[in-house]
């Protein structure tokens, strides 16, 4: 069980981690990084799957289904656009063309 203070500790440490990761990032990476973090919260897909998996009534099924569609969209879309943007960042040394 993730409960009470354990939950608070996890929350605090993860928050510090996120802050530290972004702390010294150059502004040239702001857009890709925002896109990358947008992808990471696509983990919501996992929660939506659990919600749909446990749904009983029709209403719950419909909402759960929509949740999984949206979660999958977040994860896949976030990955595709981030990858496309970062793919283009090359230094002059690794330029072949």
């Amino acid at each position: 069980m993730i409960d009470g203070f354990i939950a608070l500790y996890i929350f605090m440490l993860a928050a510090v981690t996120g802050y530290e990761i972004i702390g010294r990032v150059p502004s040239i990476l702001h857009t890709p990084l925002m896109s990358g973090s947008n992808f990471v919260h696509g983990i919501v897909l996992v929660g939506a799957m659990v919600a749909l998996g446990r749904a009983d009534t029709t209403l719950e099924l419909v909402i759960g289904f929509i949740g999984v569609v949206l979660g999958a969209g977040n994860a896949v879309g976030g990955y595709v656009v981030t990858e496309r943007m970062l793919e283009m960042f090359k230094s002059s040394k690794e330029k072949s063309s």
Partner: protein
Amino acid sequence: MSEFVSMRTLIEASYFVAAILFILGLKRMSSPVTARGGIVWAGAGMVVATVVTFLYPGMGNYALMMVAIFIGGVAAWVSGKKVAMTDMPQMIALYNGMGGGAAAAIAAVELLGGEDHGVVFGILAVLGGMIGAVSFSGSLIAFAKLQGLMKSTFRFGGQQIINLLLLAATVFLAGYIVFQHGEIDIVVIFFLLALILGITMTLPIGGADMPVVISLYNALTGLAVAFEGFVLQNAAMIIAGTVVGSAGTLLTQLMAKAMNRSLANVLFSSFGDETGEASEISGAMKPIEAADVGVMMAFADKVLIVPGYGMAVAQAQHKVWELAQLLKGRGVDVKFAIHPVAGRMPGHMNVLLAEAGVPYDIIYDEDDINAEFATADVALVIGANDVVNPVARTDPASPIYGMPILNADHAKNVIVIKRGQGAGFSGIENALFFLDQTRMLYGDGQEMASQLIQEVKSI
């Protein structure tokens, strides 16, 4: 029973690995050298977490689940592959909104399920649901605005008060659901109110401020995901959501700072509302021919190129890079100077230049390049306007006063490629265009860049 326990262990271990991959991936994404590997690491984490979730005990509806993943995944894959680099900001907004919607959906299922988890879990569930719903509808509005589907601002009297009342009503219903265990219709009204709140919050915000808002909704979605993670007792969601929540908040602040705006300013006032007449600019803009510019640049020692969103709209970045390569071939020191808010969001211009093949080590940030303008023979401004406007330094009455700008006016010669004589995105006259050392090269960005290439080649 032992099989059940080991399954649990496998799932938890996989979520742990996924969380580590997310953090390391994001860390790698924060440096241009390792960034490309970073997204792949994070992607691997996502695959691990998703696959292992199918083994979750006590679940059903697998067929429905697969269909949903297929629909959402394919739609996002196709749209993500197709979108033009210039439209990237609104696409990020759209995917972010989907994440917020998913978090709200989880909350809805949990709240409708009627299982009483206790007050703390109830609070986290409704909070996550509310934030997720606001992020969902708000992001959709942001998408619609940047995509040009709707007029960029929409304001009416008393808007702030109506928003405040909406917020109060939503919070009241949230409390009611937590403590009174609301009926289905109360839950439905609660989510409807949260969705409307997201819309009315985003409507009055202007297009120029949208990137900050998208970044804020990104952070909020992370938070919503973390809250729903607590409700579902899912460590991967808690960690990933919280990391994004705090990283996104910092990123939002950095962006707001780069635009010389405070977050409160973005959310509760609107750009250009400040009254007070900016002082008139006297003098005339002096035109120049491409041939003269070609000679000027070909025999210069140092040329600094200042690209703006206008360059990207004209799809001129490939030609500009070709021109830069030609000049470099002649021994000219060519550098790109990028303002933090060039493009539609901070760093967007870097993405657009990278697409054209410009290596990132000749692209410089405002802080690193500004001192160099004084020693530059030519500053070539293409499609940029407000970010090189010296009134930001001199005229306290100007709406952009105080915004850090690129010191293009310090260069010996300034060439501005511009379509016509009108004012820029913010509608502010640019004093740079009227300086003695400034010449205007009127025309389409791409066409002018091609002409300059021809002129330099013919020398």
